[in-house]
């Protein structure tokens, strides 16, 4: 037995009060005067026994009352085990309905419902049933209910519908212990699904069902051999003014399909799909690191060119095909250019390790995926953001993935260079390097640190701060707000920052060995460069740069040190601040600190960093099941409306940035900061991969059942082991103690009154 509030046990000292009172009462018993004791005899033994009995009864009652009250306040908990099963053959039938997007194909959902109904009908009256829906979330819809009354299960089943979200079998299996619970009957887990191969996790071991649970896969039938889906919408690599629709999957036989492009709800054109050969894509379960993914994302999300250059912010930049957590740059995993994230970027160093796929037994070698394209030119888009919708006609086996949504921003991205002096050398260096970029072309503006508050930082795709120590407190607050809202900043640490104990914006604490060898003739070299990072892909030449001084800071736990000196100190650090991204260069563009500015590397690095940051900023699109990237303007009291025009944010939730889980495809509208933005949400393209698990994979999966129970052991044994090994639940008993205490509180006066009445002695 344990106590939730053991401090109240100190109240047990109160038992001394009745003890003292009773002792006192015994010593002060009233005596009856009597004329003479001559005829009386001492009958103390008999009398005392009777008297003491009543005395101790009252005392014990009072002590028990105090004890119960104290224990009730201390909230004791007892280990609670469910009573043993009455019948050994009782079972818990857990019916997991795959409600992912792929279940909308053909009559799969109808078959799934029929199978579930058959399972419910087959339940014995003593059995229990549990209905669970599984897509990107696993929800217990109904139950557990007894098999004698399955109406709740049937009504809940009738209310289920497939969604646009993706199901990951690994997530389903690993989360099963939490929603199955520990105290349960022998469990049969019926997964009614289409056995989609792309739903398998990166690690096949994640498919292992919980111990003691018998896994039964209920196949809803064969998948169609053909299915096409829109993979991406973005500017063509050849001509940024031409928009390219990329369609993946196997085309159906018959007439070629047509891509219909609509802008802001108006049809802009129809183009037949043209097969494109030689594009290599990978399927979800067989995903391989694609070192070019980041580059592709950069090319796709930045529209080069002239004054009316167009930039497409495509869905997929926030796609999270990797199940595990990634480093700061891990979220830069991008699919194909502007597409739904089906491939992963090798990304940041943090993500490269965690996202390395363990090729499951079911995986197949990368195969050439047929890609069809359709090009749309001369769209004549006006300034601002536009909602682009691509629809494939005619519909195929899974028409829900024939539509693709994207937000196209037709305006020139701008970068703001901030320095102590708008005309200073460092600001000029940065402005020249950023201005030299052609893809994307960024309009560069320069400003002094004292004029930041007069600018709307949300209009800039990226900020470059030269020596963050020059910023005032108000400027730091503004940029911090910009960062947390999803902005991107590249900043350097210079002489002014070196005088600060805590670095603004990044929050780094200056290390003790600060300012390496000031004026001591020290020359440092770069020792390691994380070349897999998108900003450092063209990293040749870093070792030739000489550094004379830098501001030594200690990277924090969630930082990624992209470049390090020979002494281990970081030169370039990336960290996430809110929804934004921050690159910290610990040495400024100053000839007294380094000679970076005179190396050709400088322009390339600044260009890649700016491209990386602007691409990171342009990520307003999401997949179903992910958190909506609401952007910079959503920081203060933003209101979000779903594609059907209904408010997605609670009316009261205006003080903090809302976190909206996208569960529909289409355009979410974000109203905040005096403007209205759009976020495109598409279905996970892996749901469009309708290929099924091989028979071997299914047998391997179901064969993992052996790991759950000892060889040759019946499932009953497994259940018994699981129940005996499980920790019993703790049950709080304080309400019962309080109830007993209240009862004793009513009894105590009666007993005490009787006792005192007797002590008064004379009756009649």
């Amino acid at each position: 037995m344990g106590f939730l509030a053991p401090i109240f046990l100190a109240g047990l000292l109160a038992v001394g009060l009745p003890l003292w009172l009773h002792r006192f009462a015994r010593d002060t018993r009233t005596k009856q005067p009597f004329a003479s004791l001559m005829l009386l005899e001492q009958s103390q033994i008999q009398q005392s026994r009777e008297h003491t009995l009543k005395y101790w009864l009252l005392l014990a009652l009072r002590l028990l009352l105090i004890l119960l009250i104290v224990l009730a306040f201390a909230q004791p908990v007892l280990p609670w085990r469910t009573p043993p099963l009455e019948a050994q053959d009782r079972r818990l039938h857990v019916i997991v309905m795959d409600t992912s997007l792929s279940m909308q194909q053909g009559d799969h959902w109808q078959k799934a419902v029929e199978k579930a109904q058959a399972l419910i009908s087959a339940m014995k009256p003593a059995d229990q049933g549990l209905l669970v829906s599984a897509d990107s979330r696993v929800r217990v819809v109904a139950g557990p209910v007894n098999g004698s009354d399955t109406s709740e299960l049937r009504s809940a089943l009738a209310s289920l519908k497939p969604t646009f979200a993706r199901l990951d079998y690994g997530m389903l299996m690993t989360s099963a212990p939490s929603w199955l619970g520990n105290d349960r009957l022998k469990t049969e887990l019926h997964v009614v699904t289409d056995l989609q191969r792309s739903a398998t996790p990166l690690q096949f071991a994640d498919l292992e069902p919980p111990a003691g649970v018998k896994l039964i896969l209920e196949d809803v039938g064969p998948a169609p051999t053909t299915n096409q889906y829109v993979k991406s919408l973005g500017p063509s690599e050849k001509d940024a003014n031409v928009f390219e629709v990329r369609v993946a999957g196997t085309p159906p036989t018959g007439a070629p399909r047509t891509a219909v492009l609509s802008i802001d709800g108006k049809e802009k054109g129809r183009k037949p799909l043209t097969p494109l050969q030689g594009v290599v894509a990978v399927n979800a379960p067989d995903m391989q690191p694609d070192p070019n993914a980041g580059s592709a994302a950069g090319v796709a999300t930045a529209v080069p060119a002239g004054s009316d250059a167009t930039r497409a912010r495509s869905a997929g930049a926030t796609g999270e095909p990797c199940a595990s957590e990634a480093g700061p740059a891990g979220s830069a995993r991008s699919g194909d250019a502007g597409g739904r994230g089906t491939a992963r970027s090798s990304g940041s160093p943090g993500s490269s390790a965690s996202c390395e796929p363990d090729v499951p037994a079911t995986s197949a070698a990368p195969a050439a995926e047929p890609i069809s394209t359709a090009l749309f030119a001369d769209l004549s888009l006006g300034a601002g953001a536009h909602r682009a919708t691509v629809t494939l006609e005619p519909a195929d086996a899974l028409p829900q993935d024939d539509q693709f949504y994207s937000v196209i921003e037709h305006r020139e991205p701008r970068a703001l260079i901030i320095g102590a002096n708008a005309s200073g050398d460092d600001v000029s260096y940065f402005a020249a390097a950023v201005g030299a970029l052609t893809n994307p072309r960024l309009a560069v503006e320069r400003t002094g640190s004292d004029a930041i508050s007069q600018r709307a930082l949300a209009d800039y795709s990226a900020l470059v701060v030269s020596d963050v120590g020059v910023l005032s407190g108000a400027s730091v607050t503004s940029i911090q707000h910009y960062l947390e809202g999803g902005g991107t900043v590249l900043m350097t640490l210079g002489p002014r920052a070196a005088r600060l104990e805590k670095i603004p914006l990044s929050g780094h604490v200056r290390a003790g060995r600060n300012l390496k060898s000031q004026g001591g003739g020290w020359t440092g070299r770069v020792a390691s460069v994380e070349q897999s990072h998108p900003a450092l892909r063209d990293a040749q030449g870093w070792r030739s740069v000489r550094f004379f001084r830098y501001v030594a800071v200690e990277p924090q736990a969630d930082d990624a040190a992209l470049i390090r000196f020979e002494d281990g100190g970081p030169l370039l650090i990336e960290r996430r601040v809110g929804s934004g991204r921050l690159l910290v260069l610990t040495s400024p563009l100053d000839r007294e600190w380094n000679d970076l500015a005179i190396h050709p590397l400088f322009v390339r690095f600044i260009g890649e960093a700016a491209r990386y940051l602007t691409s990171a900023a342009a990520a307003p699109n999401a997949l179903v099941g992910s958190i909506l990237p609401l952007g910079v303007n959503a920081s203060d009291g933003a209101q979000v409306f779903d594609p059907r025009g209904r408010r997605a944010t609670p009316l009261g939730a205006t003080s903090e940035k809302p976190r909206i889980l996208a569960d529909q495809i289409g355009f979410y509208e974000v109203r905040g900061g005096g403007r209205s933005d759009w976020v495109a949400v598409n279905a996970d393209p892996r749901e469009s991969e309708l290929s099924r698990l091989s028979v071997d994979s299914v047998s391997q999966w179901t064969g993992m059942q052996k790991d759950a129970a000892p060889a040759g052991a019946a499932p009953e044994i497994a259940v018994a082991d699981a129940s005996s090994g499980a920790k019993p639940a703790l049950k709080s008993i304080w309400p019962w103690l309080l109830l007993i205490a209240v009862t004793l509180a009513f009894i105590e006066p009666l007993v005490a009154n009787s006792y005192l009445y007797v002590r008064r002695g004379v009756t009649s």
Partner: protein
Amino acid sequence: MSDAAARLLTPEVLAGLANLELVARTAVEGFLVGLHRSPHFGFSQEFAEFRAYNEGDDPRFVDWNVFARTDRTYIRRYEGETNTRLMLLLDASASMGFQSGNISKLQYGKYLAAALAYLASKQHDPVGLIVFDETIRHYRPASGRSGSLQGVLHALDTATPGQKTDLEGCFRKFREHLSRRGLVAVISDLYCDPLAMSKAVAPLAYTGHDMVFFQVLDPSELEPKYRDSVVFEDMESGQTMEVSPEYLDGAYRKKMEDHLAGVRRAAAGVGADLVLARTDEPLDSALRRYLMFRGRH
């Protein structure tokens, strides 16, 4: 005795009278009124008996009126008037202060003594008083003078519960004060050894004293009623004793009956009479016993 008179004589009613003389008069007058109607008891100083004249009788006592009517000679004899000295011995020990109702044993004893004194005074008998506990606290010799009654009543009025009782010792001392024979009325709860009491009283009885004992007891002493055990404190010695109700209901009552019987035997052994007076009963029964006793002597 009428009901109204009985009500007037109840101890509770008498306790409401402040003056002890008034108490005595009320009790005695009410009692005498009741006697007037009683066919069984009679008392007269002029009571006569007639018997046939025998040779040798004084012819003065021949009732000639009867002889004239019947021609027979009868002798009319008159009851001779004798003065009896009444000595009241009131026990004023601490135990006499016990009370379970509205009146204590001592107070009841005082009423009784006052009534006896008043009654004796009306008969012109000398009345004396000794108040004692373990010693003689007050002594007033018997006197038939007018005003003697007031002195006795005053002495009774001032009597309060004292210390322990030493009945034997006190009776030894009484012999010094009771030189002339007379009637001795002892008012006490008689918590003493009957044999010892008998030995102490015997010299008095042998010297010609007629003795009557009024044993005054509280009802709770005779019939104690307790639901639970109780701690009793002796009013004289201060000792305490826990007594169970079972004992009080059984053994105690038996012992009390034995004690009363022993005291009664002891009194009878010395030719004395014993009257048990309960403090919840009127005084008339005690007075009646006294008059019966007085009539015999």
